[in-house]
């Protein structure tokens, strides 16, 4: 088990380094960073000065090695754009993204799992159809559109919620629903499929035969087994939400890490992008690990294996 975990960790580190090398090269290939930093009104002399100041004229490998050396010592450098330490910048933005991500995944799980279970109990019933409709709609509707519709209804028409910002908990309601809704369909369909399969299994019949209550059968025997793949999926979704909530963060003006990453790419703010990519990769690894642990707890067979 320990050897397995170490092997996986080693692999994860290699993946992280590969990702950062690729992103570093791509950023340099996709346009001149000095021109991006200097802005649209810069003259040629301005650009030349920036090239020299940041050392963009050095070989790419040397620049990368420099960055890596500082990064492993915990120094992510200064954001070219904001002129602030990258660590300070990111910690601020990450808290918004984490809040949103945790709220959204909770929302998704709390709505999708019960709906999936209900749908599985009565397949092809009205409730199953409604659940299907909700999930198809969630999958089909682009986030920016759903977000704007929410704003129109709840902020403009009824004036219940603020359209944008992150000052109070009310500001997080609409983003949570929009982002969570995006993750919901997959979780619900997986719960439903898992439950359907499990509910037809022999041991469920056995459990029922020995007289276990309906709720006990459903939650203790069936759901616990059906939920294993859902946990893995939720972990991946959570990783996605941290890095990929760009659209939602942009519409609701949340200034989170996803939006920061997106904008920083356009600005060629290399230290910020590199640090964010590193952090996002670490999150992916962490969530995958957590989901493995959770699954091991849920399913003893995984623990033994």
């Amino acid at each position: 088990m320990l050897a397995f975990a170490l092997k996986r960790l080693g692999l994860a580190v290699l993946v992280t380094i590969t990702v950062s090398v690729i992103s570093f090269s791509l950023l340099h290939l996709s346009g001149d960073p000095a021109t991006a930093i200097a802005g649209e009104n810069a003259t040629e002399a301005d650009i030349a000065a920036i090239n020299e100041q940041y050392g963009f004229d050095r070989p790419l490998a040397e620049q990368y090695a420099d960055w890596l050396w500082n990064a492993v010592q915990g120094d992510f450098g200064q954001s070219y754009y904001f002129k602030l330490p990258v660590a300070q910048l990111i910690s601020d933005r990450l808290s918004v993204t984490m809040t949103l991500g945790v709220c959204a995944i909770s929302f998704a799980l709390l709505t999708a799992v019960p709906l999936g279970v209900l749908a599985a109990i009565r397949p092809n019933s009205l409730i199953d159809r409604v659940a299907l409709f909700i999930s198809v709609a969630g999958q089909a509707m682009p986030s920016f559109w759903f977000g704007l519709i929410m704003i129109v209804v709840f902020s403009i028409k009824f004036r219940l919620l603020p359209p944008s910002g992150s000052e109070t908990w009310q500001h997080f309601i609409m983003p949570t629903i929009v982002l969570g809704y995006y993750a919901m369909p997959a979780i619900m369909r997986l719960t439903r499929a898992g439950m359907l399969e499990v509910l037809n299994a022999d041991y469920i019949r056995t459990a029922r035969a020995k007289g276990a209550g309906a709720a006990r059968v459903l939650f203790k025997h069936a759901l616990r087994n059906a939920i294993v793949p859902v946990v893995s999926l939720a972990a991946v979704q959570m990783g996605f939400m941290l890095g990929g909530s760009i659209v939602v963060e942009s519409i609701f003006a949340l200034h989170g890490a996803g939006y920061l990453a997106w904008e920083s790419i356009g600005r060629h703010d290399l230290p910020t992008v590199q640090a964010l990519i590193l952090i996002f990769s670490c999150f992916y690894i962490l969530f995958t690990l957590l989901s493995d642990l959770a699954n091991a707890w849920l399913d003893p067979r995984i623990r033994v294996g």
Partner: protein
Amino acid sequence: MKPIIATGVIALAAALSSGQAFANKADDTLHTAFSKELETTDFYFQSAREGTILARQVWDGLVYRDQKTGEYTGNLASSWEWIDDTTLEFKLREGIKFHNGEEFDADDVVYTVNYVVNPDNHVVVPGNVNWMKSAEKIDKYTVRIHTNGPFPAALEYLAGLVSIYPNEYYAEVGPTGMGQKPVGTGPYMVESVDPGKHYVLKKYDDYHDSPKGKASIGTIDIRTIPDVNTQMAELFSGGIDMIWNVPSDQAAQLKTMDQFTVSNESTMRIGYITMDAAGRGGENPFQKKEVREAVGYAIDRQAIVDNLLQGSSKVVPSACYPSQFGCEQDVKAYPYDPEKAKALLAEAGYPDGFTIDFYAYRDRPYAEAMMAYLAEVGIKTDLNFLQYSALREMQQKGNAGFGFLTWGSNSIADVSAITSLFFKFGNQDFARDEEVKNWLDAGDKTVDGEVRKESYSKALKKIAEEAYWIPLFSYNTNYVFTKEVDFTPTPDEIVRFFEMSWK
């Protein structure tokens, strides 16, 4: 796809909106939004429009340019004179205090200028300041600025691009500190900065007797809201009072609602088509003058203005913004005439036209309209739509010589901020015309206004005659604000909060 759907959403919002605006007048706070995350509030370490806007509220320059008359008046300085071609002496106003209580005097000017011109300090846009060599204190309220060679646009640059910092404070906190707690002499003090996200300005009650005038509105609250639809939603729900850079189709919708004022004003940005007349990227059709002229005749610029840009945009005939100093308007014109374009192409040896790459980095619909016009006369184009930095990098190497670009001149009302940048053999100069360069040099290097006008006129006439550039149109901006706000936008695209008031 997104803008079309988004427009629909806003139309829906307009229909649903109950039509009442929330009053921020009651708490004397104007809420507004930036579209872009501002790098830093330290003026010299950013290159964004938003930074210029903030700087005008927080700091002052030695002189101020009156937007109505175009005249320069003293701001931190009370008077000035040219001692010689490269020395400008200022008498400073007495009794001015910075927001932190520090007294303003010659030391502040000397420190600021010498700090920003020092290449070791790496200001972001050196071109804004490196025309100055140094500043020198004569006495407590007299200071001299020495320029690197004659620099006739000095006052314009001093008015727009040289904010005076408090020397003691800046020496202590540096650019990072100034970015988090800016201190100036301007009509507004900065109360709080949440970098990139949120800025709160408070009226400075002890503001000196400046031509800018004292601020009227007590508090200005600026949040960064990247999505224009969200900005509009905030406007509808009363969260903010004013937005700008609103797309023309949405501005037209907002105009039909009676709780908002929609004000359109031109900006100093112009669009132009550049062509590789010098053959920097290898042999190409644009080396023939007839082909370049054909491009000019092929495109119905007025139609693009009327249908796409709208507002106060205008077709510009010359390679500069019309109100800039020295921007000769009496140059060869290229009215829409596709038949003439075809004839010119035939004359140049392209009776069936040709196919070529066309580059652009913004306003894709405009670029596509131009391409359609060009196709009609036989110039078939493949669009390469790139990030600005990528396009610029290609041009620096002599590639991407045929494209639609724009230039905003940094809001500097002088042709040296545009024509001289592009036609003096720099790496975005695809004309490489010795004569044009010499005329521009002559204009750039004398402080005699008449000589400058004459030199620039010659250069601009030749640029048009040779059709090195096809100047297209000026841009415009839509400002939308609640009926409670009294505000008149200016063509320099700088929002002056200190000139706003409640109705």
